[in-house]
């Protein structure tokens, strides 16, 4: 699955995106975040403030408990500040 990062999350990650094949027991966005955070830097730092992360699955906003089944792209970013 492709994972894309935006804004502060992108800067903390030091890159725009990752391409990762997840184990079969990774079902939700929460699972992804936990799995990646356990890998250490830069994930643990970029995902430290879990409540401040927002997500999109294939370009649609999604909650953290949403399933990643059949999803090709997960976007991770902080709360928006436009306008």
């Amino acid at each position, binding site marked *: 699955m492709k994972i894309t990062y935006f804004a502060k999350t992108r800067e903390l990650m030091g890159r725009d995106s990752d391409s990762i094949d997840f184990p079969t027991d990774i079902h939700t966005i929460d699972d992804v975040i936990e799995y990646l955070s356990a890998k250490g830097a830069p994930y643990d730092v970029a995902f430290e403030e879990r409540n401040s992360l927002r997500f*999109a699955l294939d370009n649609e906003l999604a909650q953290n408990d949403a399933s990643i089944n059949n999803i090709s792209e997960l*976007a991770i970013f*902080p*709360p*928006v*500040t*436009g*306008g």
Partner: protein
Amino acid sequence: MQHIALQAKAFDAGEELRKFESKRLGAIASFSGLVRSENEIRALSIEHHPVMTQKALEKLCDITTQRYHLLGVTIIHRYGTLKLGEPIVFVAAASEHRKEAMEAIIYMMDRLKTDVPLWKKEIFADGSSRWIDQKQSDVERSSSW
């Protein structure tokens, strides 16, 4: 009439206002947000999402048009690096009566702050920068609608 633009280049609010045309049109309200010299910043850097941001702006236009029975609506939001005094965002609403147009621009700006994938970073004179945090007051205002 719906005009939506997500662009790096500057725009002219007056030109946008002239685009509204309808015999039933009696009221046009508009709002411009500009880069303001807060925290001694020198510029603002705005990041967007290549797909989601445009879609979110289109959805906001549709919802606002229906909610306020608008005859026309405009949203322009810029991305990239903007200097002090430059326009960041422009929203405008045209309707028969003034109440709808005025409420529509307030609604659009409140929603923009929470519903559209855009992120602002302050750039300082020494080259350092800081991502702006979402304001709790914006979240509360947006959820009050």
